[in-house]
């Protein structure tokens, strides 16, 4: 039993053979995650700032977009981009489809979190800053945002971690990230050791990230 277990999950020969592929997947996962995080957070902040101008028609569309992106499962969005859009002539690689989908989802969540942060700054601060002669943009930049961002860090970190784990969904649309490489290794070698390697690679990436998230939550927690 133990022998069979070791042969299946810790088969060094198989592991050595597929290690280079898993390493490739490892770096692709990191690249996909980083690109998603940067795009999502920058776009989310951008939309929250646009929303603060309180132009009705624009805000209606921002809220609509955010709601739709929060209600749809990320995998459904990826499948739509990758399998449905080509029928109207829009083709993209699996990587682009995954990056775009996850970035949009993160944009939606980040926009909501930043907007809630902006709202949390009392009106009196706006009025005080404006009456000292600061412009709208300067008030936002020097008075409101620094306070708002601090509040948003814990929820934003958690959400970002959850969404970057969605990079594994790329395996469904043939992105050669960790899970995809591990699955390919499994079907070629007919041995699940590549999956063990893949699991280990995820632990290496997300273990510290989860730990960091825990730390940030404590560090920025508001004393009651």
């Amino acid at each position: 039993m133990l022998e069979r277990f070791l042969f299946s999950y810790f088969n060094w020969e198989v592991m050595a053979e597929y290690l280079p592929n898993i390493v490739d997947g490892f770096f692709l996962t990191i690249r996909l995650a980083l690109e998603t995080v940067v795009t999502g957070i920058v776009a989310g902040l951008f939309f929250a700032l646009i929303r603060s101008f309180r132009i009705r028609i624009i805000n209606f569309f921002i809220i609509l977009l955010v709601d739709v992106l929060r209600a749809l499962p990320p995998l459904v969005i990826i499948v739509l981009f990758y399998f449905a859009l080509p029928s109207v002539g829009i083709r993209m690689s699996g990587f682009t489809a995954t990056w775009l989908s996850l970035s949009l989802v993160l944009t939606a969540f980040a926009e909501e979190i930043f907007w809630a942060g902006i709202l949390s700054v009392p009106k009196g601060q706006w009025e005080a800053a404006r009456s000292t002669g600061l412009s709208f943009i300067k008030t936002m930049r020097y008075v409101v945002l620094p306070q708002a961002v601090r509040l948003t860090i814990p929820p934003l970190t958690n959400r970002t971690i959850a969404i970057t784990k969605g990079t594994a969904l790329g395996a469904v649309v043939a992105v050669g990230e960790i899970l995809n490489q591990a699955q390919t290794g499994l079907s070629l070698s007919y041995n699940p050791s590549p999956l063990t390697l893949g699991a280990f690679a995820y632990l290496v990436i997300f273990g510290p990230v989860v730990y960091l998230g825990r730390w940030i939550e404590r560090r920025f927690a508001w004393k009651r």
Partner: protein
Amino acid sequence: MEQIIQNFFNIGILKAAFPFLVRGLGMTVLLCLTVVPLGAAGGLTVALLSTVKNRMVRWLVVIYTDFFRAFPPLVLLIFIYYGVPFVGIDLPAFVAVALGFFLNTSSYYGEIFRAGIESIPRGQTEAARSTGLSGFKTMAYVIVPQATRNVIPDLISNTLEVVKLTSIASVVALPELLYAARQGQSITYNATPIVAAGFIYLILLWPVVRLLSRFEHKSIALH
């Protein structure tokens, strides 16, 4: 424009695919009704275990939650569905999905319940114990009800994520809504079933999103 209607909003295709989609939706609902209560119960257990005096137990709980939160749920699912049969245990897709979801969601629900329990002042426990309630009764009647009420928005938010997450079961051929939609697409060579599935998720989950967004604005604005 016509091309879009033809490919994404094709009434004829929709009519043909509709029975499949309804059956897929049924499976999604069944899956949710299985994994949400299981995950929440597991999470509450995890949270309660993190309050015990025994250090060893508390450490194990932290390791359990961090370990399963570090894995993307799809990775867990693939590992269980494709990996476990190699030691001679054959799991039906539904059981594999339920198990993978249990490990993942109980960690998340556990963190939420733990935050809730920590939000209740110690004086409450002391007061309850001094009236003669046992430790167990104090938890069950005094702490947990208040703790749960304090974290309702987070519980709803996590449940929404779990419901959305059930779509990954399509990867291991469990015939839920997304799987049905993709089957529909490959049979008809038309993307309408996928678009329709998207709309079904949207219609069902939009009210929850609205509710949450109100909670969120309130909670951050209160600080």
